[in-house]
Structure formats: C-alpha cells, structure tokens
C-alpha cells in the first residue's frame, strides 16, 4: 500500500471506532481543505450507509462568503445533516475581530460557541481535522483526545495510546475529540485531494481579489464590514489562501496557482508553513497550547 492509502485506511478505522463506541458523535466542519478530506473519508468509512452523524459548523459570522456558499452546496449534493451554531450572545454584544481583536473574537465566537453547541446537543465525541504536523502542541495530542465536563484538555494527563487500540470510555458530560487526520501532513492532504478529485472552496485557487496589506499580511476585503484605515484602498491582486478562517484574520499569499497541480508545485517549493497566514497563532509563544487547554480545537 502507498503511504496515502495507508493514511486513508487508518483514518477510516478511527471513524468507525468512534461511531461504534459513542452514542452521539458529530463532525466539526470548518469548510476548509482538511474538512473536505475529513468528509470524504467519512463517506468512505460507512459506505454504503450514509454518514451516520451530523456536521456542525461553528459560524463566527466572519467567514468568507465563498465558504458559506460552498458549505451549503456540499451539504445539499451529498445529502448531509448540517447544524450551524452561532454564539447569539456574542452577536448581541457585537463581537468581531475589528472591534474586539483577534484573541477575544476567537475566544467568544469560536471556542465559546463550540462549547455551547457541544453542550446543547450533548455530543460525546467530535471529529476534527487537526493534524500533528500543524503545530508543536498538536504533535503530542492523542487521536482520541479526552475532554472533561468543561471541555478542557489536560496535556499532562493524556491516556496512553498504543497500537490501534483507542480507549473510548467517558462518563456523562465528558467527551473526546477524535482526530482521524493526525498523521497526515499538508502535502499529504493536497496530494490526496488531487488523487481523489475532492471539491474544495475556490478561495484556495489564485484569482484577482481585493486586498489590503496589514502587518505584512494580505487581508481580503470580503464584505462592507471591513473598516479601511485612512489612505488604505483595496488593490486587486492575484492571490490565494493556504488556510481558511475568518476573513479578517486570514492572510492571502500572492500567487498565480489556479489549478491543483500548480498549488502542489508551489507547495513543494514553499518556504513558509501554512499556519503562518493565521494571526491567532502568533499572539504569544505556546498560544495554541493554551487555547487547546481551554477547549479550542
């Protein structure tokens, strides 16, 4: 078996273990390329049965418009059950990245919102598309990552994970986050998308888009909520995104790669890692680890 087929089989095994051992699983669907691969694997794992769990999208209300459109198309085409959760309290208070800063916005509209949704639906397992190669603290996280009643992760008290034997036992109120893509790298993801012809959001492909440059990052002006600084005018540039999140927090790269082969080629010669385009990781050293302990994915 090639390494991609091995990774694929491993992920399918993880999906099936969770569905067999938990009462109420859900898949966190963030619409990005990793979610696309995750969804594709879920469909493979349970065929000919339909995907036996709903998808949950935690909508911060600041996602790119193209993402929402893509999400709705996929859900309809594949006949999936989609739950969308927005932190209503946050919306009422007008929380947004421009007014409250990236850290607070992410905390309220993403981490808090996610916990609200998990509590509301009483999910005992949630699939996520995180990979161990993304960030140092992820490298040590388990495939079945235990969360207490408050959704907290305790990196010092993780269950040992041996062979392919996952411990799926939780008490009421506790849960696990399951990461079927743990052993995939960014390159694996792109190669697999190409090999399997998996649809992804068009924002990954280069096109002329209106952007402004801030703190060395190219931010796309996706809607009228984006406040422009004095003297700032959006420029049309050929850009694409290596990672997708809230549009004000996601930096584009200048690129002309408009096909998958071109993207993979660009990747192979790339000299920056994909999370570089994300503001939230840079707040402080070990910031991802802190967020994860508090319940971020």
């Amino acid at each position, binding site marked *: 078996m090639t*390494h991609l087929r091995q990774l694929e089989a491993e992920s399918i095994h993880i999906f*099936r273990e969770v569905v067999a051992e938990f009462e109420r699983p859900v898949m966190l669907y963030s619409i990005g390329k990793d979610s696309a691969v995750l969804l594709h694997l879920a469909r493979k794992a349970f065929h000919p049965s339909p995907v036996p769990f709903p998808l949950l999208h935690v909508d911060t209300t600041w996602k790119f418009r193209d993402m929402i459109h893509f999400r709705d198309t996929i859900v309809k085409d594949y006949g999936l059950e989609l739950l969308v959760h927005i932190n209503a309290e946050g919306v009422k208070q007008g929380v947004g990245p421009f007014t409250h800063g990236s850290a607070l916005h992410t905390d309220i509209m993403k981490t808090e919102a996610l916990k609200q949704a998990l509590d509301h639906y009483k999910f005992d397992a949630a699939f996520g598309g995180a990979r161990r*190669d993304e960030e140092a603290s992820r490298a040590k996280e388990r495939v079945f990552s235990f969360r207490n009643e408050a959704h907290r992760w305790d990196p010092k008290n993780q269950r*040992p994970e041996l062979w392919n*034997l996952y411990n799926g036992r939780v008490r009421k109120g506790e849960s696990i986050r399951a990461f079927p893509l743990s052993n995939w790298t960014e390159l694996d993801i792109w190669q697999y998308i190409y090999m399997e012809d998996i649809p992804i959001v068009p924002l990954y492909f280069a096109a002329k888009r209106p952007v402004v440059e801030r703190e060395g990052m190219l931010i796309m002006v996706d809607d009228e909520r984006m406040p422009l600084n004095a003297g700032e005018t959006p420029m049309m540039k050929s850009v694409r995104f290596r990672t997708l999140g809230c549009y004000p927090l996601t930096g584009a790269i200048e690129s002309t790669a408009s096909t998958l082969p071109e993207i*993979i080629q660009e990747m192979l010669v790339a000299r920056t890692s994909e999370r570089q385009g994300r503001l939230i990781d840079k707040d402080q050293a070990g910031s991802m680890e802190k967020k994860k302990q508090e319940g971020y994915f």
Partner: protein
Amino acid sequence: MNDLSKAATAEIDAYLKTQEQKNLLRFITCGSVDDGKSTFIGRLLWDSKLLFEDQLAALTAESKRVGTQNGGIDYALLLDGLQAEREQGITIDVAYRFFATDKRKFIVADTPGHEQYTRNMVTGASTADLAVILIDARKGVLIQTMRHSYLVSLLGIKKVVLAVNKMDLVDYDEAVFNKILGDYMKFAEQLDFEEITPIPVSALKGDNMICASDAMPWYDGPSVLEHLETVHVSASDDNRPFRFPVQWVNRPNLDFRGFSGTVASGSIRVGDPIVEPASGQSSKVARIVTFDGDLKEASKGQAVTLTLEDEIDISRGDILCATKARPATADQFEAKIVWMKAEPMLPSRTYLLKLGTGTTAARISSLKYKVNVNTMEHVATKTLELNEIGVCNLSLDKAISFDPYADIPETGSFILIDRFTNATVAAGMIDFALRRADNIHWQSVDIHKEARAEQKGQKASVLWFTGLSGSGKSTIANLVEKKLHAMNKHTYLLDGDNVRHGLNKDLGFTDADRVENIRRVGETAKLMVDAGLITLVSFISPFRSERQMARGLLEEGEFLEVFVDTPLEICEERDIKGLYKKARAGEIKNFTGISSDYERPENAEIIIDGGKTSPEDAADQIIATLEMRGFI
C-alpha cells in the same frame, strides 16, 4: 488551461506517479536529552527541508531565549512541543514528527529516555517498524541503552539502528566506535532482534546523517537517512493467517448486511471460507465492498466491508478468521503487561480489557513476577507500580479469540481500562492461552435458582452491608437475619471476621489482599444466591470497584447495597474492638478510615444514617425495602 499550467500538470502527474511507489516507515528514537536525541530528529527534519522559514525564524528566536547552543540553533526546541516541557528542557510525552523524501514518508515517535517514562517509550514503540537507539560515543553502552533495547524488543521490533552519536567529541575515532559496537552486540544476544545496523554519527555537525561523512573515511556503511529510505519493512506480502476484527455492522437497509473493519493480518479473496472462532459459525466471503467499488481481494491494513454468503450472527468485537489457521479461543491466558498508571495494579480487581475491537471484563488472576528493565531479572512481586512490567495470568468473563503477540501482534495486544476512572492503566501482550479453562465446563443443571428460591417462598438476593469498622453493619445485619428467620425465610450471613478466620485466613490487609478478600466473598455470595438464599454480607469493603465487581457477579436487581453511613468520629468513639486506638497508635497498618481510604457508595439501594438511626429501626427499614421490592 495555459501552457504553464499544462506543464505543471504534466510535471505533477509524473511526480504523483513516483509518490505512488512511496511507502511509509514508522520508527521510534530512543535515548535521552543527553544523547542528543532531539538534535538527531531536528537534524533529519532540517536536512530533509521540512522546516519552513517562519518555523526557522521562530526557532532562532526561541534558541536565543531558552536555547542551550550559545545562540546557535537548538534543534531540540523543534520537538519539545508543550510549553511546560520547554521550560524544564525535557520532553515528557510522546510526540509524532513527520518528514518525507522522494522514496518514503516517515513518522517518527519521539519519546523520552528517562526511567520514569517507560510508559511513553512503550507507547511509541507499539506502532513502530524500526527503532533508532542513540548512544553517546563518550559514554558508551549504559544501563539506559539496555533498558531501551529491552523495551523495543518487548514490543516486537526486529530492526534496530544503533546510532553512536557525538563522534565529533571523540575525534571520530574508529576504535571508540568498535568498542561500543562490541559491547552492544554482546548484550543484544539475549534479545530478539533480526537486524542491527550500527552507524557512527554526529547529529549536531551532520556527519553520516544524510550522506557519508568525510570525517570518518573508515566507515563504509550507509548514512542514517540512506538506511531509513531503503530498509525493508513488511509491506503487503503478508503470509500470516487472515484476521479481521469486526468494527461496525454496516446495515443501511434490509438488503445489505456488511461487516466493516480493517484487515489485521493476512489477506482474503471473494469466495474464501471464514469462521468466527468463538461461536464456530462459518461462511464464505460474498463481496468485499468499498466506496470505490468492490474488490476481489483485500490484505493487511485495508479498511473494507465484507458481506457473507450466509446470515450468521456476527457483531462488533468478533474476529473473522481463516478457517484453516484459527486463533486461540479461551477465557484465560498468560501475558506481559506494562503498568501505566500511578495507582498500582491490584490483582483480582476487575478491569476492562480491549483487544481488537472487543471489550471484556478481565482480572489478573496471578502475578508471576516483574521484570527489572535494567537487568532483565525476574523479581517476585504482589503488585505492579507505574512503569513496571510483569508477567501474569488473566482471567476473562467470557472466552475471546486472540493470537500470541509474537505471531500476530494485531490480535495479540490489548489495553486494560479502569472501570471507574476510565483511564488506560496498562498495555498487554499475550504469550499463550491457558487451556485449563477448556476442561471446566459449566454443569447445566435442571433445578435452578428460581426453583430453589420459589420453594422457600422468597426471591434470592444479596444484601451487601458496607461501612466503616464500628459503623454497626454487623449488628444491623444480625437483626435483619433474625427478623427474616422469624418470617420463615431462608438466609445466610457472611461476616467479615468469620470469613477471615476460615476461607480467607491466608489474606492480610494490603490493598491487593482486600480486593481478593472481596472477590472470594462475592463469589461465595453468588453460590448462596444460586442456592436460593437471601444472603447477608457484612464487610467494610472500602473500594467502590470491588463492590461493583460483586454486584456484577449477580443478575440485575439481585444485589442491594446497604450503606451504613456512620461518621468516623462516632465509629472511633464506639471502638468496640479497640481497633481505632491501635490504628491511631500506628500498631495496625492500612486501617480503613485512618490509614486507608473508604470510598463512599454513590448509588446504594439503602442508606442507613448510622449516627442517628437505632439498629432496630434500621433493620425494619431494610425489611420494608425487601417487602416493597418483592423479595419476601
């Protein structure tokens, strides 16, 4: 599509073709921080160009802040993921790293080398095809080298790279390398390795890491990366017997019933006969279903869904097997276990055992010895502590199918889970089945429990009195028995002190003995219930899990837990047997409430407020409950 993108497409197509030949090697690195292990892995990532500019920038900044290389790049910082560890300068858990060359993708399990972290090394080794054992050239073969080698061999790894590091600090001296090699080979004779590849390196300077070093012309073997890229790993040419643990029954509609799972060993073709060995049911494979269409054949590692020609009763946890090479099926086996939790192992306590996709209740029926990981000596023991390795017999609730770990690790490995904390407490590797179990078949009898109880005009049950010493358990139990007797009911009272004078006189008061004590009492109570009796058990029984075990022996509704909840101060004041006084004076060890814990029941059927209720009232309360529940 323009010309440029056409060219890119052609190029990437060619590239992906080569990727299809690419396979996966998982390896583990063993050594301590001092051996330069993190530097070793950092160097492989660095030289295989898997570090990006922003990561490098972050690394440079961190190196200046906390680094140990006087401002130079400290590769080790790449690997120490968690902030707490970074500040202590040690890796404390298992981390997985990835890199790829044109020939292979690699997954590296990075685990610490300190003694207290056997658990992590065993975890990392469980999924590895190969181990890299690092030795500091200045120090040679150390006790920890032997420990790492033993653990790697325990987990069944057959291929080892012996990386003699820091050669730059011994002037690249061939004699130093040869001396270490000789020492190691002599020691490794006792272990079960098939291939040992010694390579002299300097991870810091890069010698023999990626390509041959000019500094060591006397060495003509491969570099570390060359070896990792070409070493043969068991791929799909798997000649072992077919094993397929069923994960999930796939039933989208009435016309389709498939069994989803991953082939654990061997291969299967459409039309091949299979058997579920625990029940003996057999059939033939009708289809091998995948999302991408049906297959003719599936082999080790493939995740598929099988449909069978006959309707047979298969569920999650069953293992579909080749009919001609069946696994063992037994409810007892010998295994090596590695204890992974700070709370020590208690023989006789019931744990959950997960093997393949099945979970069964199991207990350690006898602990033969533990292994000193430094010397490999066998040491007699009554328990296992964190990071200790023992050889023991396990006894399961029901017969399951398995293979010896040495033959098929995929169906010979298991984990043990604590039933209350749900923690993974141990990892196990099966040596062989114990056939004893086959010879003791359950006698099926015509006169059963219900018939015996009915004759007595009652329903058989256990009243399990638990509470501190001096709480009044036995007094109340005695009164209840008297009242039942007066009502012409058939009863028996098992009392802590009485049983300890006979059946359990070989047991002391350590945690392990307390567990065994309760197990025997539980089994005895079960026989009494089978005889149709209302059985009263009066035992301190301080641990929740043992009371749960006793409950588990009986049928739903037969077990009534009576918690005599008397505050410790009152029990101590009563001190009928003078035991509290002795315990306070330190004359009695492990005395419940003083020097050993009492875990309060969470869901007792009957709770007696022993501080306020008189024994007479308590007994009436219990009789009323028995009447209400229809036992009498």
